[in-house]
């Protein structure tokens, strides 16, 4: 047993740190640390830096551009990048559809799509959820009917994150309506510029436009855009979702967030002392840090196991549940930390190019907004209730 990094891992960490120090633009890191809203350009700037470094798709098979990193190395990269204030790499191309294409796509798919995912030339979004198919994803209704050598797609997708930035959408569509739910679903790639695709923004209660509805009306898609086998889309979706869940624990980002919270709590004052020395606040902060430590170690255990055995397995549901709860508690404590200044809502104050005077301390503007925004972490990627159902079946056998 040895819970510390070995020499090789430490050397890798140094390499990552040097890279981040050298290549991560300071203004970008500042935006992230202040929880400001990032533009598509901000995301893509960082994406291209990683691409140039050859580090944009660590999880892919090496022959398609993967780095060959171990699970631990991936974790180290994630943690260091978060600590340095790197933006989150948008996962839709890189972590979601990319691996599906690598594993199940045709040679044409690989050549057509993978390079542009890596270079960032094409931005992807995800077309899974529908108004009537949330937790019960398999009940989705979007239909694709073959007409000559084209699929004609009709239906509606929702909660499409950054769909308004996207060039392509990967969709689950029903290609056989006569079989039971999970069967008869296929995995289809659709160009967002195709006639009949309409994107409508959904504004969240935090005042942001991040997610969208995507309407598909007689959208004609080349037959060759279907990935893998017809009516096997559910298998690919499960493969994809289990990749999604691992990242979703967000340990690295939460560790960085905790440091930010501590910095705030050192500046805020209560009863004439730094808030961080207030017994109640300190105890709550300590409990949160301890819970994060425990989860981080469990995450490492899972990673090491994954490294030895192959895939992450249902245990990733467990990481997702706890990881999302911790992200929410962090946002909650930040909001509590700023006291009365949590309530003023100056939406433009979280825009990076805003030059106005903040209301209260400059870190206050993002707090209530983040608190409400973070409620989504226990909903998306399969709600925590769904994760518990998965564990119930897959691990407990109940």
């Amino acid at each position, binding site marked *: 047993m040895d819970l510390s990094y070995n020499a090789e891992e430490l050397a890798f960490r140094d390499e990552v740190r040097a890279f981040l120090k050298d290549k991560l633009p300071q203004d970008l890191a500042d935006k992230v640390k202040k929880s400001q809203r990032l533009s598509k350009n901000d995301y893509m700037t960082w994406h291209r830096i990683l691409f140039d470094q050859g580090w944009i798709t660590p999880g892919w098979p090496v022959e398609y551009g993967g780095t060959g990193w171990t699970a631990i190395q991936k974790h180290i990269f994630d943690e260091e990048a978060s600590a340095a204030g790197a933006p989150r790499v948008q996962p839709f191309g890189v972590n979601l559809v990319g691996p599906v294409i690598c594993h199940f796509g045709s040679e044409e798919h690989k050549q057509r799509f993978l390079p542009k995912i890596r270079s960032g030339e094409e931005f992807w979004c995800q077309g899974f959820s529908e108004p009537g198919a949330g937790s019960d994803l398999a*009940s989705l209704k979007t239909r694709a009917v073959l007409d000559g050598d084209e699929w004609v797609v009709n239906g509606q997708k929702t909660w499409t994150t950054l769909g308004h930035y996207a060039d392509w959408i990967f969709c689950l569509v029903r290609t056989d309506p006569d079989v039971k739910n999970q069967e008869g679903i296929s995995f289809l790639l659709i160009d967002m510029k195709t006639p009949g695709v309409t994107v409508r923004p959904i504004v969240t*209660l935090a005042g942001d436009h991040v997610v969208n509805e995507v309407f598909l009306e007689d959208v004609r898609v080349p037959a060759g855009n279907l990935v893998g086998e017809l009516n096997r889309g559910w298998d690919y979706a499960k493969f994809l979702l289990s990749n999604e869940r691992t990242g979703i624990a967000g340990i690295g980002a939460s560790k960085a967030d905790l440091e930010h919270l501590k910095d705030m709590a050192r500046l805020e004052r209560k009863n004439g002392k730094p808030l961080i020395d207030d017994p109640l606040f300190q105890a709550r902060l300590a409990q949160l840090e301890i819970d994060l430590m425990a989860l981080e170690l469990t995450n490492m255990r899972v990673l090491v196991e994954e490294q030895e055995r192959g895939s992450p397995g249902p245990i990733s549901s467990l990481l997702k549940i706890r990881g999302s709860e911790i992200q929410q508690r962090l946002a909650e404590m930040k909001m509590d930390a700023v*006291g009365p200044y949590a309530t003023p809502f100056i939406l433009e104050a979280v825009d990076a190019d805003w030059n106005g005077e903040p209301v209260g301390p400059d870190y206050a503007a993002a707090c209530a907004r983040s608190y409400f925004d973070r409620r989504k972490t226990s909903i998306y990627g399969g709600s925590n209730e769904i994760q518990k159902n998965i564990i119930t079946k897959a691990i407990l056998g109940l």
Partner: protein
Amino acid sequence: MDFSYSEEQTLIANSLRKLLDDTYAQDQRQRYLESDLGYSADNWRQYAELGLLSVPFAEEVGGFGGSSVDVLVLQTEFGRRLALEPFVSTVVLGGGAVRLAASAEQQAEILPAVIAGECRLAAALGEPQARFDLNDVETTARADGGGWVLNGAKAVVMGGDTADKLVVSARTGGAATEREGLSLFLVDADAAGVSRRGYRLIDGRGAAEVTLDNVTVDGAALLGEPGAAWPVIEHVADLGNAALCAEAVGAMEMVNELTLDYLKMRQQFGRPIGRFQVLQHRMVDLVMEYENARSIALLAAMEADNPDVTTRARAVSAAKVYVAGAGRKMGQWSIQMHGGIGMTDEYMLGHYAKRLNVGEQTLGDVDHHLARFGAIAAAA
């Protein structure tokens, strides 16, 4: 022992509910929010006509002579519909300070316009460095001839963006966070030297940062004896918290209504999601939180007018702790039970959660009131 509204209270609750039903459909409310004013001037006028703005004031000045329970009756309705008009800041906080601190002459001078809906008030009590300690006042008032000169800054003044007059706490004596030496002044919001930065709170209500730069007021602006305002400030905060608790209870009622409806309507896995036991039991938790919140909000309203500060503080701080805690949990749980739709601006649930959030963090958060209650309980 009697937990029911009087006949008169029932009548007024019903007429207010009807008015709000007619004027607070979601699209109407959205329009108020998007207006510069941020609420409905029309409704404000109607409240005045219905006499709602007169409730806690003495009959001598044209008031209704009502109690904090009467305020609860109204606040519960305002909470149910997330009304945006500055009732709390004008009638409960600003008006509360005036009626508790000011002389009969001053009240006769100030309050009729308030009651008529022609003068909106706000209480500028908190300060940027003070967190929730209203005795942490750095704003100063220096005697100058027969009048006073005020300097300082006030933070997150609810209703301060649209108020006509501000009740400002300032230090005429004492040091740092002492309770002695505090005084209250009534200041015109557009007086020379007053600058306001108005903004919206996360629930859409208006507030302001207020700066006082050599603001000159005459002797009649001082409400009550100089240096002796602390008991009034503390009482005003209790009145405000009791009112915010009542408002929260109204909002909670709707949170539960929306959530229960959604559980019955929303189908997943071939049945209403309300058939899943985990959601059923969570919904029971929501109901329990609501019922207890309502119980203790009633207690706070009953005791909010009590001049005995210990009895009053015990009830109000207990209510604030319970209601704020319940409100946060209910906001979180109800959004979770809705899933994505609960996260959208289009659906009313999130607006209720935001309203509960603002109530929670106004005039002292859970930790603040837990400590206040705890000190009383430990001594008892």
